[in-house]
């Protein structure tokens, strides 16, 4: 009586694990990593960007405090996370919820538009953010573009 139920559950598990095999990779758009013009750091590698946005690195290589800011949603946000942080939007959100509810960190400062990111980064020393490739970054400085 119970065996068919077990078989159904097993089939469900196998199907679930097969889903990624039939999925396809989304193509990420180009994003620029920007920082305040006063930052003496000129370039960054992907690993440093990833660790700063995951809260694992709180300082620039020169010892200055690094504050990161994010977009709250959108394609640029998704492309940035996919390219540099190697996480989906949901995984990134989940990661920071985990930090918040275990006392290890606070949610990233987020903005609704790329213009707000540029303004904040331009006016705040030590800040790092990201915008799409075509965005006018004013007095901010580009650290990486992919």
């Amino acid at each position: 009586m119970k065996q068919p139920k077990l078989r159904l559950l097993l089939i469900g598990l196998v199907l679930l694990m097969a889903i990624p095999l039939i999925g396809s990779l989304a193509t990420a758009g180009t994003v620029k990593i920007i920082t305040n013009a006063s930052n003496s750091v000129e370039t960054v590698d992907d690993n440093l960007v990833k660790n700063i946005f995951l809260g694992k690195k709180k300082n620039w290589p020169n010892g200055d405090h690094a504050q990161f800011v994010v977009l709250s949603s959108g394609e640029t946000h998704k492309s940035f996370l996919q390219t540099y942080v190697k996480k989906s939007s949901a995984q990134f959100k989940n990661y920071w919820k985990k930090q918040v509810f275990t006392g290890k960190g606070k949610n990233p400062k987020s903005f609704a538009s790329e213009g707000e990111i540029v303004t904040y980064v331009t006016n705040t020393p030590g800040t790092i953010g990201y915008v799409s490739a075509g965005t006018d970054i004013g007095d901010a400085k580009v650290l990486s573009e992919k």
Partner: protein
Amino acid sequence: MKNRMIMVFVCCVLACSGLFSGSALALEAGGVDIHGFVSQGFIFSEDYEYLTNNSKNGSFEYNEIGINFSKDLSDRLRLGIQLFSRDLGDVGNNKVTVDWAYGDYRVKDWLGIRAGRIKLPLGFYNETRDIDMLRTNVVMPQSIYADLLRDTVIAANGVGLYGNIDLYAMGSLDYQLVAGSMNIENENGFEKFFNVSYKGMFVIDGHSDSEITYAGGLRWNTPLDGLSLGVSALTNTVDSPVLIGGALKGKNSTDNTAYTVGVEYLWEDLTVAAEYQQYQVEYTLTSPMGSAKGDQTTEGYYLSAAYRFTDLFSLGAYYSVLYIDKDDKSGDNFAFANDAWEKDLALSLRFDINDYTAFKVEGHHVDGTARVNATDNPIRSEDKFLYGVAKVTFSF
């Protein structure tokens, strides 16, 4: 009074969940960030009372409530506290506890210091096991994350070190070390777990004391994006007053050691994880009649997968296996042979209604009664059974 406080908090969370939508929300007062969650479940089982003592009739005595307050006092210093309450049938009963509360000073990226009540790194998910919205499944694999022991192993009062070490081309290494004292409360599940563990040879008869608990965890974030490997260990000694044969008073001293290894892989919206644990107990029972020694190694492992199809819908599944005594997997020395193992196949559906509300339903097919509590189920002759849970979680 306590219930009134809980109700007020529940209402606040529900109000926040309903009123706010769109961008992430955090309440802030005087620079203090405030976050919280309310998770209410319903559990129903056939044949046995499972997890709760009243699941056969269906039970709403299955919830978790938490609220935390934190503040960055400087770029390096952080302070926070989380209050927590849960109900699991006759365990917990929504008594409010301090889940974690610590000061955190980050000296360098590779060295931070914590002091206070600190969550213990036992497996990948011990620290987040009470935070329902972080996962697709409702019930954690009981082979490694036994719900009756949740309050005992969740945290310790002491000090800790942590950090992230850059391995450059080899990825990076996260580490945590904690030394501290556990809070062991009989009414929070420890008594029920303890009495069953010793198969009725003796039962707990008072308050247990733990010597210093040492726990450590390493997580290697490999160069392969999304792949991480983990290892963790915990060891302590617990002394418990016991009653032997219903009349003779004695003391049971246990040396406990748990080792866990695991692998987690995140790829796009897929999460796959597997963990293996051995939990070794060496006990010395002392009474006016003399002393006796014994030991047992419990073995557990699971494989889980979850996939987020859309922002609204996720599907998850796991297969979890537990052997209470890895040297007696067929149950030759158990009152019921099927008490020796539990093989749990779970399938979960999750609906994220908005950023603050998640609803889940989950079905389990269980072979074996290793986690069927003998206190609530004196007869365990049926080796297979089904149970289901539904849960809604509000968080902000």
